[in-house]
């Protein structure tokens, strides 16, 4: 797996592993946080990222399993089609959240949590049903097969930081490209400006001729799409299958990252990287010390604990979008 590992020292290999594993965890988290920023900047509190990523991963996994049956396991088509449909699936599921929050004026926090529970119940039921209906077993997971990995020649040979370009999952590249586009759209286009206006002062936005509800619906849809990509990435990188185990609270980690990043894209990336490296670094230390695998459970606490600490220290000075979580009521002043 690690080319030329023999020539290098032990610490270097460990450092490489921390970088490689950390990035493959941080980037999906980041793309999901970007989606959350879109939704929250438009004024819709989004605790439903967890459910969106799970549902997206489910639709993506169904497509992958179905296409692999047609094209054979060597083709790369199912992989990318899987990501595309994960995006669509996450987006469509997100529209339920938009419907509840915008049309039915439900409490956005409650709606978000409800979405997570609904996603979990629907996907675990449908996974089992589809498996027993089409494949004759009642497994609760879809096997996806391992993702291919890319190593960029020459750059990856640079000592230490070269590991950033080694053994990259293709979804990491997708995530980076999408994030750059999303950054541009949010801060440099008319739509992005309108979206931010809807989250800060929807009445002014309305007066300026913007359809607040439409902008918000699109924002929630985008957050669903991005979460879908993230969910599919987790399905590939962590377990190489889709199962209800995908609901591990990563959606909430990315919410913490966006709060920590003060609802801005670049600082959120910083938080995601911290989570990623805390996770991979912890595992590497457990490996290094030769402790039994049950000690891994202690390491898994790290990202959550960090989130908690970061929130405690940074929440006080945060400025959330002013109209965040409020139902937009045209008649109210």
């Amino acid at each position, binding site marked *: 797996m690690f080319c030329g590992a023999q020539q290098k020292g032990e610490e270097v290999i460990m450092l490489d592993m921390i970088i490689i594993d950390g990035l493959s965890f941080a980037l999906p988290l980041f793309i999901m946080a970007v989606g959350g920023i879109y939704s929250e900047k438009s004024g819709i509190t989004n605790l439903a990222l967890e459910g969106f990523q799970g549902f997206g991963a489910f639709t993506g996994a169904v497509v992958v399993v179905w296409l692999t049956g047609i094209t054979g396991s060597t083709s790369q088509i199912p992989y990318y089609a899987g990501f595309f449909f994960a995006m669509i699936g996450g987006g469509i599921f997100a529209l339920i959240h938009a419907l509840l929050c915008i049309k039915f004026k439900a*409490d956005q926090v409650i709606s978000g949590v409800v979405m997570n*529970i609904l996603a979990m119940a629907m996907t675990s039921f449908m996974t089992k049903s589809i498996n027993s209906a089409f494949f004759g077993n009642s497994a609760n997971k879809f096997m996806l097969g391992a993702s291919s990995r890319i190593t960029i020649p020459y750059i990856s040979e640079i000592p230490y930081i070269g590991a950033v370009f080694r053994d990259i999952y293709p979804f990491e590249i997708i995530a980076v490209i999408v994030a750059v586009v999303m950054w541009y759209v949010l801060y440099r286009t008319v739509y992005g400006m309108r979206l931010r206006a809807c989250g800060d002062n929807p009445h002014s936005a309305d007066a300026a001729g913007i359809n607040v509800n439409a902008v918000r619906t699109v924002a929630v849809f985008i957050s669903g799409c991005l979460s879908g990509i993230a969910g599919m990435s987790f399905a590939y990188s962590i377990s190489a299958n889709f199962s209800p185990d995908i609901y591990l609270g990563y959606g909430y980690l990315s919410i913490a990252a966006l709060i920590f990043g003060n609802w801005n894209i670049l600082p959120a990336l910083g938080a995601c990287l911290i989570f990623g490296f805390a996770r991979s670094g912890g595992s590497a230390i457990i490996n290094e010390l030769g402790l039994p695998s049950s000690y891994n*459970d*202690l390491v*898994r606490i790290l990202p959550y604990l960090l989130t908690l600490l970061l929130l405690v220290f940074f*929440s*006080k000075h945060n400025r959330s979008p002013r109209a965040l979580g409020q139902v937009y009521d045209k008649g109210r002043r």
Partner: protein
Amino acid sequence: MRKFLLSCLAIIISLLFGALILWLMGKDPIAAYTNLLQGSGLMHKARYAGRQSMFTDFMSFIDAMTPMIFASLSVAIALKGGFFNIGVSGQMMAAGFVAHMLSLAVPSKILVIVAGIIAGAVLGALMGWLKYKFNVNEVVTSIMFNSIIMYLVTFYINTFYINPVSRQSKSIIDTARLTLSGYRWENLKVDIALAFPLAVAVALLLQWFLERTTYGYEIKAVGLSPKAAQYAGMNVNRISLLTMTISGALGGLAGVAYFCGYLASIQPGTTPSMGFDAIAVSLLGGNNPAGCVLASFLITIISKGSIYMSSRQHIEPEIASLITAFILTFAACSAVLSRKGKK
């Protein structure tokens, strides 16, 4: 009254949704729903195994319902006070774990209950404190706590307290367990939930507390509008802390009723889904203690009866959580309709 009707509507729509799914899968919805009632001991099954009857089924139904009442009350009082306690799962697990540990030293039912209350209350208070002191969203902290507690407990159980056969934690000793399991009564083997009377009493007490005491009034006032409450001279921080402490204590009670009563051991690696189902129950019960008891009854029929239903109809038991999730979704919509009606 309007709220009650809307809750009923949410249930009916969800059951119809569920029936539609069952029908699409080629099952008979009426038979399936009858199985739910039979599995809960509310209707006669065609036949029973030895030492079992409709009565024993009903008693184990009560046993399953007891922690649900506590858990839903925990969510309900938090919502009344303006908090969304999604950390009930973590509070349950922590309380169950602490009670298990203490019962190793002093096996006593009273101690198990007290330990559960204290463990839950401390966690709840911590969340309330983080909210008002550092302005951290309690939903996110609760989720973080859920994960942290789950991994800590899992680590401890897997390392020191595992039953190698069942892959669960060791079982709590019978003298400390809150359920009399397999109690011989005439020729039947009955599970008696000793905490059930306590659950009903706590619900009544909470109803009285919210409707008839100053503290209850203040909790509701802060929940409706913290600013108005502060303007009226209430100490919002102190009341928030009180709300979350009570909520946490109830979550802890749910935990001991679940892990040291209904079940005798703790399953490592997962948080109990009851903490999330309790949100559905509480919303359905209109965040009202009496309503919570009624709604617990209903949701437990679905969760408990689904085991029998899935074995009779050859359908995935996950259908139960699916129907619960539907109820939750419609209840979230109808909570708004009821607000609209008042304006």
